[in-house]
């Protein structure tokens, strides 16, 4: 528990500060690094907002996919563990179902990391 502003708001403010007040004072490699940091602040702000729901959906999708293979016990695994298990058992999994589940998860990762990279038909609907 922390007092306001929350993490996403702070990260956005950090990005704004870097972009609007700091970048112009820098040049060359330092400017490039500051731009990278500003972008990471925006990524982390989105991550803070979106990741809990995306992670839950990813966990469910991977667990369902792996559960279709009776050999695999998935109850104890974290989302990272399920992701690795999916890689390790890729040859045993149904290609179409695997592709569908991974696409859904990766679409969420791109929505966090670089939403403008999503193709138009993958863009989230405007609220």
């Amino acid at each position: 528990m922390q007092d306001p502003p929350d993490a996403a708001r702070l990260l956005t403010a950090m990005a704004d500060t870097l972009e609007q007040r700091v970048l112009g004072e820098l040049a060359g490699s330092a400017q490039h690094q500051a731009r990278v940091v500003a972008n990471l602040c925006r990524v982390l702000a989105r991550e803070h907002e979106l990741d809990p729901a995306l992670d839950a959906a990813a966990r469910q999708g991977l667990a369902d996919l792996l559960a279709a293979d009776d050999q695999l016990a998935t109850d104890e695994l974290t989302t990272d563990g399920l992701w690795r298990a999916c890689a390790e058992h890729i040859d045993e999994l149904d290609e179409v179902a695997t592709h569908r589940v991974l696409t859904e998860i990766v679409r969420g990762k791109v929505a966090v990391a670089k939403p403008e990279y999503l193709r138009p038909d993958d863009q989230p609907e405007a609220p």
Partner: protein
Amino acid sequence: MTAERADQLTDGLAAVLGDARGDVAVRVDGTASVGATRRTLFATVEGPDGETPVVVQLAGLSLDGLSPATEAALVAAARRAGVPAPEVLAADDEPEAVGQPFSVARQVEGLTVPRHVLRAVAADPALGERLTEQLGTALARLHAIDVATIDDGVPRRTDPTPTEAAIAHLRSIAAGLPPSPVVALGVRWLAHHHPAPAPAPTVVHGDLRNGNLIVADAAASEGGLAAIIDWELAHVGDPMEDLAWLCLRCWRFGNDDLPVGGFGHLDDLVDAYEAAGGTFRPDAFAWWEVARTVWWCLVLALQASAFTHGLSDSIVLAASGRRVAELEYDLLHLIDPSRS
């Protein structure tokens, strides 16, 4: 860079370049880039002939790259074949001369930053078309070089075939990283979709894309391809690898309808390539699109891994970990079972 290190560098370069050009002095003008594998500096050589702007590359941690001397020999061969590339004035794989392996090339004027290139193309659409055609011609010339004449230091990725060698290479990189089901699915796709082999292996630039081109814009002259740079990933393999890498979505910078670097149409690239003697193989092109997308996905993960394992404190490498998703996204699109 410390003052002492800077002096060692400029004195060393002056000694190397002075042998061929009389008494010279070298002045470092600035840092062009600090990449994952090398540091690039702008410098000026001052000698009896006047001032010569040069680019100095200092080799560092390399994932795959050619040594500076091997790269210089290959660039010279490419220039003889009619491929626009910077003239290398000196290169040395040994650290004695300037403190680390290096190369010095004559600076070529023009745009290199992808967004600057795309801005110039937006202002002059004929530039994009011309650039695409020039790249097709340059690639055909590069791929026509007799590989038997190429420096032994250029890796032959042909055993038993370029596609089999590529899969083995991808698996070896993946083995050092946390397992990814997207990469695993991509490699599985590659193993099940080998194209017919290339009639003969060729020289492959290996990193030809928007970002490794020097583009003279219309203000400079007619405008177009002034040079292809960054030859460190060159190897002998399947020529379609170069065309596929040039056309990956991640190098279009948002201009999705122009697959060639975000500035050109594939048909124009292929027409120019074939007019200059190349043979376009669509199934191999599609295969290499997938292979190089997997590769770039792995390299970005490797860069992030260098950060997480404490081998580098670079924020740029750390940030690569959040770029992996873009490549995973493109990979899944390319191998979508519903598209085939």
